[in-house]
């Protein structure tokens, strides 16, 4: 088989001959060699294939083909290049053609450098053709040049981006745009230029988006050259999408203008049907019937324009614009370029607005308007609000319309020239940002909702037919953009007031509306609804309108006039009489304008009041909300109403310090001294006094949960008031450090008492808090509790300290036990001889300030071990043990008690005979006194004693 690589056959590009093994079997090798020589074929172009090894042979064929193709393209390119160099043709269009060919061949050879060079050459040569070429009619000539330029630019950009040369690609695009920016052609048909420009940006945006060379970090890029400085935006596709949309907008408006002005444009459709793009890039021709044959003919510029207009009209540019801007918006949002994103959202919204799609337009305008509000760009805010206002009118949203209108008129637009000389004639629907325009919107909106009912039917021109009849209520909070419409500052003159006594309150209202506003009446609302009051305008007729906030019969004030003058505080001072104790706070001020319109503004403290974002940077004369400058700086909208004085006494009858281990009784007496007590509750808290300070019960609880050193054991109920207890439900909750007891109803002069039992486990001081809450006037719905608090610190003390000591028997006769003083080494005797008498001295020392009445003191042995471990005898007795009694009965007193004076000791001595060797535990010592009993069991080390065997009897045995 013979594959001619290219046709026509040429020896310069030898054919590739592959011969199957079968051929070799038929034709001898010598003959083949002769044939090859005859055909002047190189041996490498003759391949022998074995069908059984075809997969192995295919790469050889491929490489041979590739080599041949490369050689061909190289040769072709060289041939064409020589023509370019010789400048054999002075025709620029031929040079462009040659350069393009060479570049394409270079691309085939993957010689990207050469491809780029020749595409660029073609591009530059093409640019020279502008104004020089006369080959086609003027318009079509430019269209052809631009179409080819677009193709070349696409090639160049693709090659640059594939090569990772992002900066170069961007710079190239920059140059491409600059080269053709002014090549508009006929200004009458400028839409062709805008369309072309838009396509350039779109194509580059898509190329950039698809490119693998993504922007890692702007600082890592070479930021352009000295001639062409670049910014980070130029590396993002979003930037190009946005501009593509911008040019398409230009094209759309230019086309609309052209179509509206041109009469001929109406009749273009019929004659432009047969025009089609030619086989040559950028050219158009007409298909005409000539007899039976169809032939292509050149067309005139007029014909082309008709065709171009009809083509352009077919496309819905707005959808394209919105789609590209949305891409741009999302991209900028992801890049956290909020302001660019907001601008794109604004453009999208404007496009939707143009398409009469108010709901979509509103969505995107809302995105934009929030940023402008936040940053206080008044001129831009005005424009967007103007659009939004129209959207709400088209959507029939009356409330939105009023809110947006009021926001617009309350903007700090002072005059045309003071703020950026807005002489822009291309305003949005809001009109120019001027004081007169503010005033006209103000009048429009106030006329709309303040006019009388009979005129409602004539409001159809405003676009609202039905909603206008219903009442309109606006809520203004601290973050509302409507805050400049009505600012309510409220200041109490006193920080603390007595109940049922008059207190002064200053109400200051400020409006940034451009014209004075007359208020029919004001309603001031408090957290205590009984304090709510109304301020009426005397000049307005009294209309008995239902009010949800102010009850009938509540306080009413009258003012000769209630007019809000622009940027001036309206200051009103009144006296109110709070009934209840606790916090009294002004919540809001409601202004009624006309019969159906109300604005409720959240009350603000002068001390915490800030200007709204749009007004805070304005350089205008500011006055204080109150005449009193101290109140204007520190005034608060809330005050504290004191509780009435309690007329009940709570007494804590403590007696002396508490002793560890005893049940300490604390009598609590509630005595009425003027007030009756209803629904009384006694709260008891025990708080650890640590580090000199006091813990609150809640804080102290976690510490005391593990081991309550002091706890409430119980509360003895009332004495003789059982009936009333059952009436009140008898609440009685006791925890370790907290107790709650209900107090029965008491009439004036009566008293009630209970006993609180507290037990100390450790010697600690505690603070006892007792608080009584009661109603002085029975169980009325609005009655408030009166509280009385009492506290007492109680010391917990160790009553006595028990000690033990061992003494050797030989010293017993010389010692006066009462005077034994504890020696530092007293515990050294920790070992006793077996079966010999030792003296055990037990002493109980009174540590309190009062005499301790001791009833008995005894020593006991464990049943199991005690009988075998040691023998105990009463001290001072005879030397012999009393039978088998190995347990000392201890000491009892039936004068019953013995008094141990403070700081003195009571000592008992025992004779102890250890019976067992080794480590032994000391028996338990028990002590009983009048107020409590105690057991002595010292620590294991202190109470253990080592018993060693008695001296060995070796000598006697030996004898």
């Amino acid at each position, binding site marked *: 088989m013979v594959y001619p690589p290219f046709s026509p056959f040429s020896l310069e590009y030898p054919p590739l001959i592959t011969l199957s093994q079968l051929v070799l079997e038929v034709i001898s090798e010598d003959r083949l060699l002769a044939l090859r020589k005859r055909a002047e074929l190189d041996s490498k172009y003759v391949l022998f294939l074995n069908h059984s090894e075809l997969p192995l042979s295919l790469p050889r064929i491929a490489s041979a083909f590739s080599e041949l193709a490369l050689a061909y393209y190289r040769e072709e390119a060289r041939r064409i290049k020589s023509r370019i160099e010789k400048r054999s043709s002075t025709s620029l269009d031929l040079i462009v053609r040659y350069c393009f060919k060479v570049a394409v061949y270079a691309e085939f050879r993957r010689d990207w450098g050469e491809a780029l060079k020749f595409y660029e050459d073609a591009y530059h040569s093409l640019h020279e053709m502008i104004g020089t070429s006369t080959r086609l009619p003027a318009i079509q000539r430019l269209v052809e040049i631009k179409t080819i330029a677009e193709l070349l630019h696409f090639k160049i950009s693709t090659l640059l981006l594939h090569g990772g040369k992002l900066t170069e690609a961007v710079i190239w695009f920059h140059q491409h745009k600059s080269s053709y920016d002014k090549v508009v052609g006929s200004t009458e048909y400028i839409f062709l230029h805008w369309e072309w420009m838009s396509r350039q940006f779109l194509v580059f945006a898509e190329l950039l988006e698809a490119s693998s060379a993504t922007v890692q970090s702007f600082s890592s890029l070479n930021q352009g050259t000295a001639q062409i400085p670049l910014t980070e935006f130029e590396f993002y596709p979003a930037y190009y999408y946005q501009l593509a949309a911008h040019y398409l907008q230009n094209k759309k408006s230019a086309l609309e203008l052209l179509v509206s002005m041109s009469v001929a444009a109406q009749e273009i459709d019929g004659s432009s049907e047969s025009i089609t793009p030619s086989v040559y890039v950028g050219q158009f021709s007409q298909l005409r019937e000539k007899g039976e044959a169809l032939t292509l003919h050149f067309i005139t510029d007029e014909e082309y324009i008709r065709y171009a207009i009809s083509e352009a009209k077919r496309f819905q540019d707005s959808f394209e614009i919105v789609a590209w801007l949305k891409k741009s918006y999302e991209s900028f949002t992801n890049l956290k370029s909020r302001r660019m994103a907001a601008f794109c959202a604004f453009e999208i919204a404007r496009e939707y607005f143009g398409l009469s799609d108010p709901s979509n337009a509103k969505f995107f305008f809302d995105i934009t308007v929030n940023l402008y509000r936040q940053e206080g760009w008044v001129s831009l805010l005005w424009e967007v609000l103007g659009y939004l206002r129209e959207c709400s009118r088209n959507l029939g949203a009356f409330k939105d319309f009023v809110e947006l209108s009021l926001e617009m008129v309350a903007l700090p637009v002072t005059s045309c020239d003071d703020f950026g000389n807005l002489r*822009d004639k291309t305003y949005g629907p809001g009109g120019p940002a001027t004081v007169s325009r503010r005033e006209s919107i103000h009048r429009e909106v106030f006329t709309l909702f303040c006019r009388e009912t009979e005129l409602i039917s004539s409001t159809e021109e405003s676009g609202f037919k039905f909603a206008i009849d219903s009442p309109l209520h606006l809520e203004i909070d601290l973050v509302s953009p409507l805050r400049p419409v009505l600012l309510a500052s409220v200041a109490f003159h006193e920080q603390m007031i007595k109940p049922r006594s008059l207190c002064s309150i200053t109400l200051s209202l400020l409006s940034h509306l451009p014209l004075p506003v007359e208020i029919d009446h004001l309603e001031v609302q408090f957290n205590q609804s009984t304090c709510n009051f109304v301020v009426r305008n005397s000049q307005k007729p009294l209309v008995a309108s239902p009010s949800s906030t102010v009850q009938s019969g509540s306080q009413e004030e009258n003012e000769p006039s209630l007019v809000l003058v622009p940027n001036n505080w309206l200051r009103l001072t009144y006296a109110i009489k709070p009934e209840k104790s606790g916090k009294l706070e002004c919540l809001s001020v409601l202004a009624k304008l006309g019969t159906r319109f109300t604005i409720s503004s959240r009350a603000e403290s002068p001390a915490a009041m800030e200007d709204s974002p749009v007004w805070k940077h304005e350089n205008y004369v500011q006055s204080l909300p109150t005449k009193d400058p101290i109140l204007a700086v520190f005034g608060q909208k809330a005050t504290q109403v004191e509780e009435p004085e309690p007329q009940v006494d709570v007494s804590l009858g403590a007696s002396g310090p508490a002793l560890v281990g005893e049940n300490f009784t604390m009598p609590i007496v509630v005595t009425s001294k003027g007030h009756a007590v209803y629904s009384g509750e006694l709260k008891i808290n025990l708080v650890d006094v640590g580090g000199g300070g006091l813990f609150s019960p809640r804080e102290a609880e976690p510490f005391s949960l593990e081991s309550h050193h002091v706890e409430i054991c119980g509360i003895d109920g009332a004495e003789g008031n059982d009936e009333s207890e059952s009436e009140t439900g008898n609440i009685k909750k006791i925890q370790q450090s907290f107790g709650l007891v209900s107090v029965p109803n008491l009439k004036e002069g009566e008293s009630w008492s209970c006993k609180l039992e507290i037990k100390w486990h450790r010697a600690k001081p505690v603070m006892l808090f007792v608080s009584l809450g009661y109603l002085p006037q029975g169980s009325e719905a609005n009655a408030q509790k009166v509280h009385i608090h009492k506290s007492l610190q109680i010391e917990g003390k160790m009553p006595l300290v028990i000690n033990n000591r061992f003494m050797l028997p030989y010293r017993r006769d010389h010692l006066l036990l009462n005077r034994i003083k504890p020696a530092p080494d007293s515990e050294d005797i920790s070992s006793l001889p077996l079966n010999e008498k030792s003296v055990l001295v037990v002493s109980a020392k009174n540590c309190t300030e009062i005499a301790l009445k001791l009833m008995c003191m005894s020593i006991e042995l464990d049943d199991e071990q005690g009988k075998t471990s040691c023998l105990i005898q009463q001290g001072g007795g005879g030397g012999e043990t009393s039978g088998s009694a190995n347990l000392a009965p201890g000491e009892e007193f039936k004068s019953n008690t013995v008094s141990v004076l403070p700081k003195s000791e009571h000592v008992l001595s025992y004779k102890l005979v250890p019976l067992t060797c080794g480590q032994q535990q000391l028996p338990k010592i028990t002590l009983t006194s009048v107020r409590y009993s105690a057991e002595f069991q010292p620590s294991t080390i202190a109470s253990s004693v080592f018993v060693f065997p008695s001296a060995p009897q070796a000598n006697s045995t030996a004898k």
Partner: protein
Amino acid sequence: MIVCVSVVGHQNNPLYIQSFTDADDALKLHHVVHCSSTSSKSESGTTLNEAFLGLLYPTLNYKVYGYLTNTKVKFILVTTDLDVRDTDVRNFFRKFHAAYVDAVSNPFHVPGKKITSRTFAQTVSNIVGSYGLN
């Protein structure tokens, strides 16, 4: 030709904005100035601890340059010139900064409020008029 100059506060709020064009593009210039302060350069300043921020934002018809003061107040310059020399812009901003310092040093000026001084407006007009003459 300089078409707009602006002083933008550190909360990106406009403190002064003045356009020098008779064309109907004042609102467009407001948009341009607003968008230009979105670039990372204008938000963080340059790494070289330099007040001049360079080209901030290229639009189709304008070039926007920025300058950041130590108090994080930005100056924005919008020009229609295609070939802009850095030195010209730097000189402009230096003079503008001096005029701004004079304006805010006025004891009646409240820091953070818009600049409404007529003297400042006149000085700015003079600086804009003399731009690129040297």
